[in-house]
């Protein structure tokens, strides 16, 4: 997966979001080791201090657990990951519904469209 750092928000926030997504997708599985900050920084082409801050946020969110000596791992607590996954999905749906509402779709039309697209 490529790193996309396109918008004008703080870079560490964009990094946190993208690593979170990798965890939610299972690219970094529960309990699995996360790559070292320096390696991730070089991969993404960003400053190591910025990557460090992104990782600190993941720890704060409970998605990553750090140990001073062994590096960081994804949490083994799947409930935390599930909660984050649901939150992310809700955000995506809310965004989608907002656009449909702006386009003048009714509730029924929106639901019908979603079903139709899903089954494609």
């Amino acid at each position, binding site marked *: 997966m490529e790193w996309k750092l396109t918008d004008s*928000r703080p870079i560490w926030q964009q990094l946190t979001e993208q690593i979170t997504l990798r965890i939610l997708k299972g690219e970094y599985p529960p309990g699995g080791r996360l790559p070292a900050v320096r390696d991730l920084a070089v991969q993404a082409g960003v*400053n190591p201090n*910025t990557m460090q801050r992104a990782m600190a946020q993941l720890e704060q969110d409970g998605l990553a657990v750090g140990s001073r000596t062994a590096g960081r791992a994804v949490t083994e607590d799947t409930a935390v990951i599930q909660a984050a996954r649901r939150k992310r999905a809700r955000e995506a749906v809310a965004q989608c519904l907002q656009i449909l509402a702006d386009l003048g779709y009714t509730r029924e039309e929106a639901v019908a469209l979603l079903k139709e697209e899903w089954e494609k």
Partner: protein
Amino acid sequence: MSEQLMKTDELLVTCTALTKRYGSKTALSGVNLQLKRGRIVGLLGPNGSGKTTLIKLLCGLIQPTEGDIAIGGMPVGPGTKALVSYLPDRMYFADWMKASDLLDLFSDFYNDFDRTKAAAMCQSLGVVPSQRLKTMSKGTKEKVQLILVMARKASLYLLDEPIAGVDPAARDYILNTILTNYNEEGCVMISTHLISDIEQVLDEAIFLKEGQVVLHDSVDAIREREGRSVDALFREVFRTTGMEGGAF
């Protein structure tokens, strides 16, 4: 192995009321600046804003008209030159030299030059040590100079326009080399006007305008406060002076 990165608050460079005049032209005016270890700092400003003058002062290549500089607690002199690794904005080597001659030269000259690392960097950047400078492309010459500078374990790396005039692929190589090889206890200062290319590797940005520091802050603090990238802010700050300094 520790995951903690070096991000101390230890000061490495202090400039106090630094002024440089060339005759009647003021290149730098009353610059106060502090640089900490473990940071990558962008020195950003249009042509003629004083970037190269500041870097040359830090190197001890020119003397300030007024004010003081301290690097690692010492005034600029032979002691600080051993701490500083400098990439000039133009090539200063004889073009009959081979890349390997330059590696020999730097091994002789600098105690902190890591020849093994330099050889490894040549390989990963596709530089052939037996090739002469005069037969190299501009991008390859830039890479050779960068290897010489980054293979030192210096405290202060001063890179004057390291990405000017090279293609985007070479630019990625160069930035990657800087990220992979800088000494984490040192400070890297990169001067450029190509901000969008380097914004994401920087901790801090310094805006120089007509010889004065108009902004010095962390990149993410700027993004948070301004709601836009450093590049976008730069374009606005310098828009009104866009034509100055250009000989049209």
